[in-house]
């Protein structure tokens, strides 16, 4: 369940893109750790979810993120041939190739869903990718597509009424 919104002061601040990253724990997550270990700074807009493998990432996760209001999603795994499970990233590559085409065809901004290969040795690349993705998503603006508010049947304006307080 979602947390209560932060106080109003937060909302007045400039909009910041919210990006969710799904990182395989062997390569990309380790790459991000290396970026940390090497103190390579990058924007704080990304929230990382650790998964065993890029092949674990169900495209529906991506959809759920965008539907829930994330402005961008980044899936990152090992380079081809490097998968700790030898094949997981190959399956991921196929799935996301198709999924990306589908989203683009439906008119979803392609900048909102990105995929990268980052190895455990590529701390610098990781930082670069986060920078680029954040910039691109910032340019794309807030996600108003898949996270659009619910459309009402009739256009009648609504009022909110408190029912009870406990």
């Amino acid at each position, binding site marked *: 369940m979602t947390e209560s919104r932060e106080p109003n002061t937060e909302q007045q601040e400039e909009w910041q893109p919210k990006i969710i990253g799904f990182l395989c724990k062997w390569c990309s997550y380790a790459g991000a750790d290396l970026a940390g270990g090497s103190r390579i700074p990058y924007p704080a807009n990304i929230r990382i979810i650790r998964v065993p493998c890029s092949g674990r990432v169900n495209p529906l996760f991506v959809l759920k993120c965008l539907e829930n209001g994330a402005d961008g999603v980044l899936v990152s795994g090992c380079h081809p041939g490097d998968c700790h499970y030898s094949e997981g990233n190959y399956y991921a590559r*196929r799935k996301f190739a198709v999924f990306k085409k589908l989203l683009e065809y439906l008119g979803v901004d392609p900048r909102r869903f990105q995929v990268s*290969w980052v190895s455990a040795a590529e701390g610098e690349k990781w930082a670069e990718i986060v920078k680029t993705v954040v910039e691109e998503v910032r340019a794309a603006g807030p996600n108003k597509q898949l996270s659009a508010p*619910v459309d009402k049947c009739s256009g009648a304006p609504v009022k909110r009424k408190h029912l009870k307080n406990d």
Partner: protein
Amino acid sequence: MIKRLQEKVGKLLREKKVALVIGYEMAGDGISTTPCFIEREDEVERLVWNEHCVYNLSRYLIETRELASSPSPKIGVVAKGCDVKSIIGLIQENQIKRDEVVIIGMECEGQFDVEGERQFKVEGLKLKDKDKDKDKEGKLLEKCKACEVHIPKVYDLLIKDDRNSGAPEPQSPEVNAYAQVEELEGKSQEERWQYWKKEFARCIKCYACRQVCPLCFCPQCIADQTLPQWISPSPSLKGNTTWNIVRAFHLAGRCIDCGECERACPMKIPLRKINKKLGKEIKEMFDYEAGLDSEAKPPLADFKLEDPEEFIR
């Protein structure tokens, strides 16, 4: 054709080769057909074959498989070339066994669009009158215009069309099967989004698209699950879009383009246009076409080292 169909089915039933035959019979309106289930030889008269046999009856094979797996008899199914593709898909994905089904293949010159009927609902005109105004080509379903399987690729019995008996199989016409997809691809991203937004907004979540689909055989659709709740069960633009994306994605590399989802949709969302797009991409990227080989690995459960990855940073 009808006569031969009835005879053959009668024989199958008489010889106890099948327990049940799924076929078409006339609907109450006297024009269109409806699926029927023939169990006794004296019922075979009900079977018909005409240009209104749009339904993909392989959908019912899942529901009748219990019958088929019982010791002796099999299930007979009347199937057009396109329907056979979904039967291949069902065998490929372990839903039925080839030797449990008797495929009664029909040579098919194409099925008619029920759009006439739709017009009739809007304009208050009679279907029959409307029908007269259209030539045969004009009434053909969109999917039939680019058909390459007038004669099914796999069958146990083939009922040939009387009109071209002995004639070679009709050549597939020079129709661009992806014309509609390409038209949409040519639009800007924002235009595409506005287009689909409007279409998805109409969705009422009746799941007719799913229920009619021969390959939507999951015992419990992900849309019906609550823990976690992947797809909001209520109709709203957000949930509708998610549902439609998931539906399309779950058919990626599996859809055999029978077009049943689009036909069944009461809100007339152009679902085929999405399925077709994914079919096109999978063919281009992975050189795979669904419904041709029951031994093939489904493309999303497979990979090649040289698969495209330009989209990956």
